[in-house]
């Protein structure tokens, strides 16, 4: 799966869970500062991403996923 495909998948999850406009979900955007995803919604995003991309995202790891790009990179690596 390409980075773009992962980003698009994340954008869909962010729209569903947190109402984020898919056009806004660029790699450089911060979940909390730019996209207004609160901590409970972030949990939902993570669980939905695990299911969609068939990866494990440990709770310890979630705090390091500041931006959409961080999440894309993690999923890209974890999926290999």
């Amino acid at each position: 799966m390409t980075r773009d495909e992962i980003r698009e998948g994340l954008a869909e999850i962010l729209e569903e869970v947190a109402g984020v406009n898919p056009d806004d979900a660029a790699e450089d955007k911060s979940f909390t500062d730019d996209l207004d995803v609160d901590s409970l919604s972030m949990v939902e995003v993570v669980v939905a991403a695990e299911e969609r991309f068939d990866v494990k995202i440990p709770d310890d790891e979630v705090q390091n996923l500041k931006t959409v790009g961080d999440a894309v990179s993690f999923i890209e690596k974890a999926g290999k």
Partner: protein
Amino acid sequence: MTEVVITGLGATTPLGGDVASTWAAMLDGRSGVGVLAQDWAEQLPVRIAAQLAVDPSEKIERVRMRRLDRSEQIAIIAAREAYADAGLEAIDEDVDKYRLGVCFGSGIGGAITLLAQDDILEASGPRRVSPHTVPMLMPNGPAAWVGLELGAKAGVHAPTSACATGNEAIAWGLDMIRSGRADIVVAGGCEAVIHALPLAGFASMRALSTRNDEPERASRPWDKGRDGFVMGEGAGAVVLERADHAAARGAKVYARLAGAGLTSDGFDIVQPDPEGGIRAMRFALEDAGLTGADVKHVNAHATSTPVGDMGEVRGIKTAIGDHVLLTSTKSMTGHLLGGAGAVESIATILAIKNDVVPPTINLEDPDDALDLEVARGTKRETVVPAALNNSFGFGGHNVSLLFVKA
């Protein structure tokens, strides 16, 4: 004593998505009861209920809906309408939020969320359980969300007294203003638990009507053919305001909340003791400095159960007198449980404001012991200077509210 008036009303009920449509349907004598078409209803002995006329999704955006239990959604909708109706939305920036309180309850809480998340837990494991589960099912959720929605900082309270909840919340709001803790309180109640488990639970108690073939005729307070209540879902909210505060901002006033009476039976967890209701009605009169003769109309608790309906009638005769004009709007809305007292308070307030008592439908063959006048079948236009609203709840909670013309 501090005078408290009603300056705003809001509701979403089986009869309409707001106060105007609900009230119009009440005056027309329409039933909000229908057949439950959902698959899960097939196995139940009771397959009728009074479902919301307007789905909350029409007023709340999709992402917000996901984070709110249905009871919280309708609490917000009713409270928003009441706040706007009071003219407060328009001057929101000038409302002193440190003097704005909320008293809002639900009888059962977020049962639908609990059940849905339990299904997810069983099917997919704990990691899939929504992180919003706890704030969605906690019984103070509706009050808390209303408080957040309006930015209320004087205090947010969530009374829980089963079917007396809506009235109790309004009584607490009255206390909050009288004690000087707030100038304005948004008060009310809600319930949204039309789902297999709550229906099965009430059905097991033999509390629900099983008139599945004639849903619109199932809620029939005081009728010989009554066989239990019909579960409904809905929310009602009123804006209570210190009278001089309302006058100073030129607010429109629907009525005055002159008194409240709250008692407990100390008798049984489900069986009512009519003596408790009698004391509640008397305390409401005393609190208002009125006598039974002043009360023209009673919006009765009357849920359409064989025992409860007539016990209340005897209580009303003892506490108020035999001159009152009764109605039970539950004949149309079904029983909104935690929302009942609030929606019925709105009906009582509008009866006073408009000098018209909404009808009791389906009262075709009155109980032999019914010797009070009822607005039977059609609305009754008559001057209503003062009226009482009764709500009684499982647990032996009794709350009577006395409203008078402003």
